[in-house]
């Protein structure tokens, strides 16, 4: 059993999954952005990264304020980090004339 917490909203979770994994949740502390839970006891920062490029017709993920979020980064004190990027959907349209 693993214990998880969120440094931004305080949410707690517990999992029994034996394989390596990361729990995600829509984080109120990051304005609704899908963010990873952190194993209890770790001191890290979890940050939302705003998309750098224009959106155009891309199907992107946005926070509660409507800002396009490109990724969520987890920074550890030793300089290492995790990065979860939100890939937009590639689309094509079909129609009968």
């Amino acid at each position, binding site marked *: 059993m693993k214990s998880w917490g969120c440094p931004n909203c305080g949410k707690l979770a517990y999992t029994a999954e034996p394989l*390596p994994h*990361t729990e*995600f949740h829509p984080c109120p502390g990051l304005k609704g952005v*899908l963010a990873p839970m952190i194993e209890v006891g770790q001191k890290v920062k979890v940050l939302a*990264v705003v*998309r*750098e*490029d224009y959106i*155009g*017709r*891309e*199907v*992107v*993920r946005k926070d509660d304020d409507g800002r*396009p979020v*490109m*990724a969520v980064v*987890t920074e*550890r004190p*030793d*300089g*290492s*980090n*995790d*990065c*979860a*990027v*939100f*890939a*937009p*959907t*590639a*689309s*094509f*349209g*079909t*129609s009968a004339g």
Partner: protein
Amino acid sequence: MAWTNSKVFARYVSDMMDNIVAFDLGSDVPKVALYNNVITPDNTVVSASTAYGVGQWAAANEVSQAVQWPVGGVALAGTSLTVGASATTYDANDTASGSAATLASIFGALVYDDTITTPVADQGLSYNYFGGTNSVTNGTFTVVWNVAGIFRATY
């Protein structure tokens, strides 16, 4: 130029419609390869130029690390094809590296069919632009696919 958007390859659609390539997304195993910003993806190129390792998708532009996110990419798992009222969606589980990855200048991904060998091996299905530069240092890099899927056909 460089990356500007996410697109389905036109030749993926036309080769499927024309029965030139036996795509079977119900059983094929596509892979996800990562790329830097040196490339300029184009979804209108010929089939051969959509393939992994060819043209814009050459290994020189690929971002990889042995074991963590190896050359050639990471296989999609948990793939699904869902037919809805306004779209058919191809999706999969989020795709993650090993837990000790160090990767830099990641701008986007090529999703290609690693099962297809003829007439074009490893033909591209789509490319997905992350919206800027991303990196990971001794950690996990995860591609979280949109709730609207990796790619979709709308109607």
